[in-house]
């Protein structure tokens, strides 16, 4: 078993380069905020950011000038406001516009699935009659070879240069376990050329091996595993900390004013120096109100006859 532990700084500087296609994934849960902040801190530029649901971390990356293209399916901050950095970059008359490439959720997920599976495309039931194929040449229609009266839309494989995801735990060789809402993390890890995983804790491999079905990404598909507690904040990690809704509600106000946004990035990303500095700035008891009541899974028996 190869040790794949990295510091966050090393993982990002060694595996992410200017101009890369970088997928940051996590669907409502386990959003890799700490990794996004490290990308901003290192001043990486000209990224094609792939994310099914560009939200605050995407707004921060766009606001910090790291992104030249956004591949996505839904960009919003739930019902608590807009992502103004992204809107400024894509709405009419933008001063520093970014390119966008737009899908539906399953359209983009199916691109990851095709990329992970080494096939040129994946069929999908929707898009007939939508205006999306008109603005995205990657949504194409083919005839079924089994029935010339049946057509289906297909999307092409996507293989990002780097996938970055967050999970609850892994061992030092990068076997990653996650629970709760899983998102497209497994798909994007297999689809990407390199994968960085941040976890709440690195655990003994005996813990991982006591429940092998819980492993969503095996060690061989992981290039760097980074221990980064609270690294999904203000998003959440099931069983570790809940979502910081106050932060989400506060974001619109910051994002709306370019100067305020710049200031926030300076203060909370650059000035804190690293993730430990960020946590330090949040303060000692910050996570108390977000700490869950423990509700443990009933163990299952993996035993066999010896």
């Amino acid at each position: 078993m190869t040790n794949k532990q990295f510091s966050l700084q090393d993982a990002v500087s060694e595996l992410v380069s200017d101009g890369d296609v970088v997928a940051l994934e996590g669907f409502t849960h386990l959003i890799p905020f700490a990794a996004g902040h490290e990308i901003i801190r290192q001043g990486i530029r000209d990224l094609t950011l792939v994310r099914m649901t560009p939200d605050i971390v995407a707004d921060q990356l766009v606001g910090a000038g790291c992104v030249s293209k956004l591949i996505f399916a839904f960009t919003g901050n739930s019902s608590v406001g807009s992502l103004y950095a992204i809107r400024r970059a894509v709405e009419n008359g933008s001063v520093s516009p970014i390119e966008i490439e737009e899908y539906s959720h399953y359209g983009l997920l199916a691109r990851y699935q095709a990329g992970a599976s080494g096939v040129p495309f994946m069929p999908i039931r929707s898009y007939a009659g939508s205006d999306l194929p008109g603005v995205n040449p990657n949504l194409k229609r083919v005839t079924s070879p089994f029935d010339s009266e049946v057509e289906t839309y297909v999307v092409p494989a996507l293989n990002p240069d780097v996938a970055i995801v967050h999970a609850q735990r892994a061992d030092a060789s990068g076997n990653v376990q996650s629970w709760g809402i899983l998102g497209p993390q497994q798909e994007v890890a297999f689809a990407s050329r390199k994968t960085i995983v941040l976890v709440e804790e690195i655990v003994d491999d005996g813990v991982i091996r006591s429940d092998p079905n819980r492993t969503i990404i095996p060690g061989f598909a992981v290039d760097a595993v980074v221990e980064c507690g609270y690294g999904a904040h203000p998003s959440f990690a099931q069983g570790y900390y809940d979502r910081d809704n106050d932060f989400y509600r506060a974001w619109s106000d910051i994002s709306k004013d370019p100067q305020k946004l710049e200031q926030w990035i300076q203060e909370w990303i650059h000035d804190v120096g690293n993730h430990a500095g960020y946590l330090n700035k949040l303060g000692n008891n910050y996570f108390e109100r977000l700490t869950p009541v423990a509700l443990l899974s009933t163990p299952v028996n993996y035993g066999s006859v010896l």
Partner: protein
Amino acid sequence: MITKQAERMEEARNSYTASELLAAVSCRLLQGKRRVFAGIGLPTLAVALAQKSSSPDIEQIYESGVCGAHPPRLPETIADASLATGAEAILTMPVLFGYVLQGGWIDVGFLGAAQIDRYGSLNTTVIGPWHAPKVRLPGSGGAVEVMANSHEVFVVLRRHNPESFVDKLDFCTSPSLAAARKAAPKVPTRGLGVTTVITDLGVLKADETGELCLASVHEGVTVEQVRAATGWPLRLMESITVTAAPTPEELRLLREEIDPSRVYLR
């Protein structure tokens, strides 16, 4: 004095907010349905109300893969950790979108939109042209899939006005059944498309051609008001009913059992 207070209490019991009305109306429309695909908010209230009244077996399925949620408290957002706690199943995304949604297991999909047209096509993408938007909206998310794969779709629009109910969408994100069939007749469709639109003024229902027609108006709303608020010549169902007010029991369930801290009951 005592009489006056009793009167006020009586009045309070009988009055209701728009959210309460929409939740009650949606709940009634869900009767007999089993699996509802929806986000957080009004549909959550409607499903919860249905579970506690007419449809104990109704189940809400979330885009995140959560099925059979039993949150220990009312979830505040779609990203609430409590949705996972004690759920019956959390499916992977390929299973949720591929097998559950595309596989045809959803009876009713709930959608919202910035714009809707007369056959129920929805715009959640842009106001203005896509290449140079006046306002950039969030985009499809799973809406295209919910529209194409649910057996029927309910649309909830809290503000019924000519900017939302348009003759022509700025951008068609999620096409109506009619639009899908016209654009690509060989791509299989499923179900009935948008059957029901619930707004702050009334309820529109699809006729046999799929055209959305006014079926009922809320108390105190006139047909003319709805027509004026609709950007196409709104046709009427043969008989227009007046939406029945939420019953005292519906209001009690909503206020006391489902959303006592009024997370959604604005």
